[in-house]
């Protein structure tokens, strides 16, 4: 019997994995990927909760979250390309000082 709690635990697990990725990885692309994992965990919670309360709003919010994630991924990747051109490195530690 699959209950709402199963989905919530799964979502929490995914979110934790994503957060760990953001903190621990030293590669900007992987950090962005981990952020996408976190956003998907949240999407899962929304859809599961929407099903639980028999409301379609869960899926609509997911629709908006996906759109925002797309926009954020596009701009994030453009930023990464611009940064890479300056420093030839994708390690966030290479960008810690304010001066170029």
């Amino acid at each position, binding site marked *: 019997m699959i*209950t709402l709690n199963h989905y919530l635990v799964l979502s929490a697990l995914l979110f934790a994995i994503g957060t760990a990725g953001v903190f621990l990885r030293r590669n900007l*692309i992987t950090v962005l990927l981990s952020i996408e994992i976190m956003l998907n965990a949240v999407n899962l919670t929304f*859809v599961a909760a929407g099903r639980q309360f028999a409301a379609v709003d869960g899926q609509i919010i997911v629709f908006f979250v996906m759109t925002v*994630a797309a926009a954020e991924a*596009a701009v994030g*990747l453009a930023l990464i390309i611009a940064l*890479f051109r300056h420093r030839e490195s994708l390690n966030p530690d290479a960008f810690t000082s304010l001066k170029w």
Partner: protein
Amino acid sequence: MALDTVLFYAFAGITVLAALFVVVQRNPVYSVVLLIASFGGLAGLYVLLDAPFTAVTQIIVYAGAIMVLFLFTVMLLNVPREDASEFDRAHPLNRPGARRFGAVLVVLFLIEAVWAVWHVSGRETAALRATDPGSVASVREIGKVLFTDYAFAFEVTSLLILAAMVGAVVLARHRAE
């Protein structure tokens, strides 16, 4: 073992394992491909939750468009594999105090996770409320609510996408030196 249960664990397993390997993997192209697999697992979970439109949108938007964007960037920048030894040496969190503190936090987290799961599985939980097939999930329903209650958010989202497009083009442009 009902089919629903088996499918849930199968899709959940794919999603979590793929996400775990995304974070642990060194090769960025493999990370992107694994994340696509993870999104596929999530789409399966959405279908189990009676949300076929969300599942299909997940594949079209996330797995089909955003990840292609990531893949392009990774391939064009020729992103290098992370070097494991350099990782250990240069990581800002790799200090002795931080390691011990981190280990304590991990143990606390695991204890809390086990407690949470044990605590909720004993109690009488409502199964996901049975819905008429297609009533909550039908695309018609979603469209109706989206364009009436959420119409303003919809329009603002289109502006957001426009801003993102312009921003991406401007940021990634070659400056005429």
